């Protein structure tokens, strides 16, 4: 199924590239015209992008898309989600099937420079880790020589894994699946000894196991995985909008503006907050949006911290610490350029 999908998207990409060339502003116009943002998400990864019991998409990556919809259309619910596995995602974005890809995607040089894409920021600083079943009695990744490893095709995970084992003079058997569901199934069936992925995703995938307490996450983190939203190259206006939607959320957290107090904050006399919420200056206009763009994001989706805690932090089943993802003012590295 998915093979056909990726083949079809690849062929569609060729067809699309053959027919049109991008022009700046095209995406914004198109989004306004159709009335929703087409957003590429994962096929199901708790905390990041996953359908809930009612079939609504939830997660931190989903909230990024909602933020963009709130900024552009004034309504966070105007998003259409396209589930994509790791192999399909870039072709789907290149071919115009989605307006933005918000699917735990790592920012790397190759992807930035050769795929015709632009990374618009970092929603989550991650790193690759290993999940093993408890009864293997392994306590370090260095003991994994000869293990069979379940991974997902088309990820940085695949490449880091090869590097790590080579560097440490160890051998492994890669067992490659198309979706995280299949990867988890393969791990549970014992097809592999180890499941490797971005660490946050290991916490998420562990929830999918029938008995999560039987698996442990090893201490080693073997790579840097800055995950963020991606857009097509060549449409700088849209690139800016996506970039600054996320920056607005991070800045809002820094300024203490939340979805709960945003209305009250509108009468704040702090010039930074006034610029953010559009009560002073013309920030929205510069982006091609209305001046209450950031107000809409924060009112409807919340600031970065709210988004984090709700989806992957203490308010969620994943219970991930802020760690690297705390604001720079609080020991983390989340930092947004000034909104002025």
């Amino acid at each position: 199924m998915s093979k056909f999908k990726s083949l079809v998207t690849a062929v569609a990409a060729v067809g699309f590239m053959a027919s049109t060339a991008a022009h700046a502003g095209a995406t914004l116009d198109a989004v306004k015209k159709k009335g929703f943002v087409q957003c590429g998400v994962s096929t199901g990864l708790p905390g990041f992008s996953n359908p809930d019991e009612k079939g609504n998409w939830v997660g931190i990556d989903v909230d990024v898309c909602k933020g963009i919809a709130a900024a552009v259309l004034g309504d966070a619910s105007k998003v259409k989600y396209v589930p994509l596995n790791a192999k399909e995602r870039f072709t789907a974005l290149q071919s115009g099937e989605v307006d933005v890809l918000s699917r735990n995607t790592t920012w790397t040089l190759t992807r930035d420079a050769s795929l015709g894409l632009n990374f618009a920021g970092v929603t989550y600083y991650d790193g690759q880790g290993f999940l093993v079943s408890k009864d293997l009695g392994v306590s370090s990744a260095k003991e994994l020589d000869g293990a069979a490893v379940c991974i997902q095709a088309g990820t940085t995970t695949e490449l880091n894994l090869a590097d790590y084992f080579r560097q440490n003079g160890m051998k492994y058997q890669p067992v490659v699946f198309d979706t995280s569901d299949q990867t988890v199934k393969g791990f549970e069936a014992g097809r592999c000894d180890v499941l490797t992925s971005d660490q946050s995703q290991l916490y998420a995938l562990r929830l999918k196991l029938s008995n999560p307490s039987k698996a442990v996450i090893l201490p080693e983190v073997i790579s840097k995985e800055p995950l963020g939203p991606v857009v097509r190259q060549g449409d700088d206006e849209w690139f800016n909008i996506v970039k600054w939607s996320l920056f607005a959320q991070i800045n809002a957290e820094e300024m203490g503006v939340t979805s709960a107090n945003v209305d009250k904050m509108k009468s704040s006399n702090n010039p930074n907050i006034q610029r953010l919420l559009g009560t002073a200056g013309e920030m929205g206009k510069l982006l091609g949006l209305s001046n209450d763009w950031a107000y809409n994001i924060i009112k409807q989706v919340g600031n970065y911290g709210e988004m984090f805690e709700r989806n992957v932090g203490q308010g969620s089943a994943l219970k991930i610490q802020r760690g690297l993802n705390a604001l720079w003012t609080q020991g983390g590295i989340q930092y947004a350029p000034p909104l002025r």
Partner: protein
Amino acid sequence: MQSSPQPQVKPRKTGKWWNDPKIRGIFYQVLAALAVAGFLWYITNNALTNMEKRGITTGFDFLSQPAGFGILQSLIDYTEADTYGRTFLVGLLNTVLVSVVGIFFATILGFIMGIARLSHNWLISKIATAYVEIFRNVPLLLQIFFWYFAVLQALPGARNSIEIGGSAFLSVRGLYIPRPVTEDGFGWVIAAFIAAIVLVIAYVKWDHKRQQETGQILPVFWPSVAMLIGLPLIVYWLAGSPMHWDYPELKRFNFAGGIRIIPEFMALLVALVIYTGTYIAETVRSGIEAISHGQTEAALALGLNNSQRLRLIIVPQAMRVIIPPLTNQYLNLTKNSSLATAIGYPDLVSVFAGTTLNQTGQAVEIILMTMAVYLTLSLTTSAFMNWYNKRIALVER
């Protein structure tokens, strides 16, 4: 196209050269060919220009870049440090492997089931019918999933492997069997085997001649088998058994040593064989049914027994009818093997049009190369089958 081609045919008495249907025919064909070529050139050029504009890398340079990812099964030496070009080869060989082995077993299964369906034994023919009806009507992808997720992943883990004959082990990790390791002097055994083949061919020829002269038939099958197995075996023993076995051994995580047959391969192979076997069975059945009943009666009148009748009269004639659709089934099997990616068998589509495409992003080049491969594989298969068809058509006369 403006330069008018000179008429090569002798001018007719009446009418101008442009009314000559032959010249017109050529003219329109050239025109059509040019239009197609021009169209292809246009879209390729357009795609490349646009991709460049969007900052998407194009060209085939990536083939010499290091790939940096591992592949589960490879018939040639492969490590992460090898190039993307090599991943192409690895994937291609894995596709060829599963296709060739699949075609082999599907043919055997299909012929058995096709003939069984025509059996006068009620039970046998019903079993064959049920087989065909069930497996032909369930989508192949589901069958692959069934064998992989429902059957093979339900096997015990590596430590609780099912032991077969003390030296082979079946688990969720696949089938591990001992690997023969040849030593000095094994060349003699191979030579003996080749000699046995030559002897068998000579024997068959001689037997034919003798039959034509005297009308007597000597047994062929069992003597040939005895020769093919016996001679190498004797030489093996004389040469001092120049071979030993490398047995799989349980290590910390997995078995090591021996030959590993990965479950992804098994599931894909079983599904392809069973699925394609149904179509081959139908092809065989219709081929046999196409032979007029008179042939059977004539064979009976000559006093041929059942197996002789099938082997000497029916099947050779039926083959003529069977070969063309059989070729189709072989092509289908090869193309269907690309469903491998659904369970992660590292075939061409999974490795090259999957991982390599994703890591390099060069969709156009990679899809083109992949399509070219399937086209070549298909054309080669049909060329071979056409050649074979011609050959047996001659024999039949």
